[in-house]
């Protein structure tokens, strides 16, 4: 049975220094508030895992929480680069960032293997690319029936996976809908999991396209309305595109970014200032 806790308690209980942590979300339902709480609590030496590291990973990397990133696409969607990520990779600031780089198909299948209790997954992937030569966790595998050579990637089993969902009931059953990304697999692959939700309700009424994660497959649920901002939660909020745009300027400059981290950790404010005013 999932425990129901505050975000601060949940992050304190589940995320430790040196952990392998996946905050998943494919544009939709990104658990940004949980990422900010990890920064606030000053976690260090994390191996961050995500298919699509975006702003919240830029923030975690810039704040010095991560020693390694496992990923397949790192950018500010619809805007451009992640400048804190680039500064870490290109200049080692605030610290060097080790990277383990895959494709989306590879990452998705690594989570599937992790969720399935298998040590590896098989796909048609990476053939002819330079990824196979720079990433050790990509290997050939031969079909025992046809002799055909395919690609194997190892399972991902994070110490903790964090996702955001629309709702949970009071027993901790979680319901999410809309673009589902790889969240179910990421939760099932993890040793521990935290789901932040828009609201906790008495009963999860059926919703078309919804997936339910039973309470016994989740470690902790925390009610965090708006916890996906500037991402969105279908049925609850719209994507704040101006935040993404405003982040570009803040993240380009180490001092601006430092001031943002200071506001986050001292005042608890994750707001940014852009063309549309404060967000």
């Amino acid at each position: 049975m999932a425990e129901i806790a505050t975000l601060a308690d949940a992050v304190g209980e589940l995320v430790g220094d040196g952990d392998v942590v996946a905050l998943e979300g494919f544009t939709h339902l990104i658990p940004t508030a949980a990422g900010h709480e990890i920064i606030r609590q000053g976690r260090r030496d994390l191996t961050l895992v995500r298919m699509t590291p975006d702003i919240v990973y830029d923030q975690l990397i810039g704040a010095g929480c991560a020693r390694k990133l496992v990923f397949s696409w790192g950018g500010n969607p619809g805007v451009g680069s992640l400048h804190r990520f680039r500064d870490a990779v290109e200049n080692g600031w605030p610290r060097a960032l080790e990277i383990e780089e895959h494709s989306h198909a590879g990452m998705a299948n690594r989570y599937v293997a992790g969720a399935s209790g298998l040590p590896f997954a098989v796909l048609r992937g990476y053939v002819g690319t330079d990824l196979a030569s720079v990433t050790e966790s990509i290997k050939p595998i031969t079909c025992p029936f046809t002799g055909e050579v395919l690609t194997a990637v190892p399972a991902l089993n994070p110490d903790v996976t964090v996702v955001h969902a629309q709702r949970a009931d009071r027993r901790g059953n979680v319901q999410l809908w809309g673009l589902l990304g790889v969240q179910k697999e990421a939760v099932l692959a993890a040793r521990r999991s935290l789901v932040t939700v828009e609201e906790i309700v008495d009963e999860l009424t059926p919703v078309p396209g919804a997936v339910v994660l039973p309470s016994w497959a989740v470690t902790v649920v925390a009610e965090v309305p708006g916890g996906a901002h500037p991402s969105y939660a279908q049925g609850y909020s719209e994507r704040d595109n101006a935040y993404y745009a405003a982040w570009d300027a803040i993240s380009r400059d180490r001092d601006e970014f430092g001031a943002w981290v200071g506001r986050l950790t001292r005042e608890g404010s994750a707001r940014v200032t852009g063309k549309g005013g404060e967000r």
Partner: protein
Amino acid sequence: MSYTSDEMMAVAAARALSGRQRVFVGIGLPSTAANLARRTHAPDLVLVYESGTLGSKPDRLPASIGDGILAETADAVISVPEVFNYWLQPGRIDIGFLGAAQLDRFGNINTTVVGDYTAPKVRLPGAGGAPEIAASCREVYVVVRQSRRSFVERVDFVTSFGHGTGRGDRERLGLRGAGPTLVITDLGVFRPDAGTAELVLTDLHEGVSLDDVRAATGWDLKVAPDLGRTRPPTADELAALRALKEASK
């Protein structure tokens, strides 16, 4: 009606799509072109996005690959593992529609790094879904703004395999799709040579000279003997493109 070179590129790319083709759509320029095609001459196109939507029918340009409008207007919303495993990998998609930071003479794509991988000059976003899109779709169309920075002799990093070092490389590697068969830029249109698979200029956009293209190409460019001219955007095409963009603001 005046138009920008970006508008010409979007219109030319849109025209490349037709009928009921299933198109795996990258975000940015490919998404603009695919949506323009669907709103003009190819209303039955099936748009597939890697965020897990089959048959999205957005009435504005999605702001990102995971814009809610893609899910709300889709025939089916599926998980990300499913889109890659059940729909892309088996070869169900006709056209993979990709962008590029660098594209080389043989249609190989780089979206990973400029410079050396371990000490990059510019760290780019990375592969995303592109390596397997380029491998598994029946054909790949690339749409990219052309310059000596983007059109290079040899990409710094092969993120997505095009034709490798020439015709026959794909077959030798066992890749099933035909790879890049069409490249559309803001200057013209390129196709791989039937013999060598080297990208050859086959069409110039209206108002662009051969010298313009050569100046923006990082290798000794070959030109098709029957070089064509792209028709300028029609008023309808431009109106549809601008309406799509306006609706997205």
